[in-house]
């Protein structure tokens, strides 16, 4: 695992945590059939927070953030995202989904649409943005992720790192207040991980509220203001990155850190 992943100084001027609550999870439980995947999760995320969720595979970290935009249904407890409670009401779900951006491990770009169409589709159909305005905004974000020249190509013609940056731009085009990252670099070659992480760092520098499930501990150390360690469907430990890495409290965290940082 790369310890230091960026070679430039991170601008922390806008990375401020507000006292307004962005996400509040209380006593949330989830089962897959009879398997208890998430157990009594309590978590409050303030606006502007950059949270990294780490843990062994199968610990429920992806499931947790997928619950936040109702890609997975929770059975007990309460999730409030940006003031709207997640319930079975489809209107609430669609509202939350349009406010919360999500980046997937396998990008999930739409292969039959060009990069530009991928980015303008949801703004045009969900937000009813005029086509021209949506295209201008898409180009703005494609420039931000440094691939405006690919706008008229199809996803299949891009490298993995480029596709993931398109996926980030596609989410940003919906002007989300919160971004969820579900192992965004796990399917990428080592050379491409850096370009995606750089994009994520830029987002953090602009004050975006971010929840990232990732194994990139360098990113966690440099960018996150809080690291959450999960195991067996529970939050085992959370702390500021400095404390978390240098002075882990629980034995489970110590074992995990020694395994992923040990080589």
């Amino acid at each position, binding site marked *: 695992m790369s310890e230091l992943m960026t070679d430039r100084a991170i601008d922390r001027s806008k990375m401020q945590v507000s006292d307004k609550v962005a996400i509040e999870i209380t006593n949330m439980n989830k089962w897959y059939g009879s398997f208890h995947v998430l157990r009594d999760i309590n978590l409050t995320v303030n606006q502007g927070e950059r949270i990294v969720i780490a843990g062994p595979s199968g610990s429920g970290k992806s499931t947790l953030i997928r619950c936040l*935009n*109702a*890609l997975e249904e929770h059975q007990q407890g309460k999730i409030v995202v940006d003031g709207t409670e997640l319930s079975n009401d*489809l209107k609430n779900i*669609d*509202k939350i*989904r*349009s406010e*919360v*951006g*999500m980046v*997937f491990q*396998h*990008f*999930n*770009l*739409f*292969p*039959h649409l060009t990069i530009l169409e991928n980015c303008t*589709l*949801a703004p045009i*159909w*969900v937000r009813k943005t005029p086509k021209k305005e949506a295209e201008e905004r898409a180009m703005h974000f494609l420039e931000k992720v440094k691939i405006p020249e690919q706008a008229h190509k*199809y*996803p*299949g*013609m891009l490298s993995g790192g480029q596709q993931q940056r398109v996926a980030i731009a*596609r*989410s940003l085009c*919906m002007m989300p207040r919160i971004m969820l990252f579900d192992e965004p670099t796990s399917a990428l070659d080592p050379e491409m991980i850096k370009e995606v992480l750089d994009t994520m760092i830029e987002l953090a520098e602009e004050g975006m509220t971010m929840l990232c499930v990732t194994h990139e501990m360098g990113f966690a150390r440099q960018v996150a203001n809080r690291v959450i360690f999960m195991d067996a469907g529970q939050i085992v430990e959370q702390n500021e990155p400095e404390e978390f890495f240098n002075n882990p409290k629980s034995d489970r965290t110590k074992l995990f850190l020694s395994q992923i940082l040990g080589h």
Partner: protein
Amino acid sequence: MSGTHAHTVAYVRDTMLPEQAPPASEVGPIGWMRHNLFSTWVNTGMTLLAVAAIYYVLAGVLPWIFQSVWNADSLTECREIMMETWGSTHGHACWGVIKERWLQLLFGFYPPHLYWRPILALVLLLAALSPVLFSDRVSSKMLILTAAYPFLMPFLMWGGTIWGPLSAALGFVIGYLIIKHGSEKLGELGAMIAGVVAAVIWWFVLAGPVTDALSSALPIGIEAVQSRQFGGFMLAIMLGVVAIGVSLPIGVVLALGRQSDLIIVKYICVGFIEFVRGVPLITLLFVASLLLNIFLPPGTNFDIILRVMIMMTLFSAAYMAEVIRGGLAALPRGQYEGADSLGLNYWQAQRLIIMPQALKISIPGIVSTFIGIFKDTTLVSIIGLFDVIGLASAIRADTAWNGIYWELFAFIAALFFVVCFSMSRYSMYLERRLKTDHR
């Protein structure tokens, strides 16, 4: 060992090698033949065997087609000419039957002075299909013709008053307006149901009297043609086009219904698909021709061709649904999640993300189903409609042509082959055009 190797292991290339042309024996026609026809002794043997087989078949078929008799009024006359010219009746075609009866094979018993109507309908069909089939080259304004064609075609083919097709079209307009403007008051689902109900009430209750009143007040129309006069290849095309055009949207709805979380919708769709697929088409056609009259109230005039069209459409829709379900199953879960995470609702996700990809994957299967149902239209000869096969039997029953087989069926086969092969080529073109990966 490593010590002795040390000076050879370290290696730095200081000049890069230039690109060279491949040897002459590897490229061009000679290279191609070496690779594909004569690469091994077995391959060479197979090549020679295949050439011999092709020669044998063509040596039999080509003289039959080209050393043939065109000017004869009966099979007996044909044979006389053959004896005079080649000294044998064997191995020569008698195309006189096609020359005499080709219009009947194409149009059935449609009144000859009205042949312009099916021909115009065919030309309009091609024009109406062009914006759908070649959306990248033909202006989308042509879609107006595509929308009007379902009403134009019956008017041209059956003739009669113009008010019939117009009032049928009005039902769609009524439904559309209610769905479009009623969604604020009734909600989307409510408006959808209200629109469909209003359209159905219009068609089955009001449209009949209104049409009668209008046609007696303003008798605008063209000469009417009865359904029993329809026939020939024209009938195959009519049945095929309707079954193909209507079964695709119904198939999409059935495939989505089968995957639905709504349990009743799901089982209605599963039940329909499994029932229709489990029954031979010919039984459905017999139901259309014989049984339906028993169930309908006496005096109802439910056109036989319309009944057959409905049965063929439903039959092909059930197969279509399964083909499209295959396409849906091939889509990765991530596509649904990608669409969901952006806030697209179910219908938007289906229309913009899922269906375009699922249909693209299913193109070969969809076109196979199309070709299958088009060829199955010949089954209507069994329930007494005079399609090409029915006409071929009728022609052979004529004393002048009694005993002629090959020429008629070769002609029919050629007609079907042209249409089916075009569909097949189009599907390959479409697959290439829609290919967006690995470019």
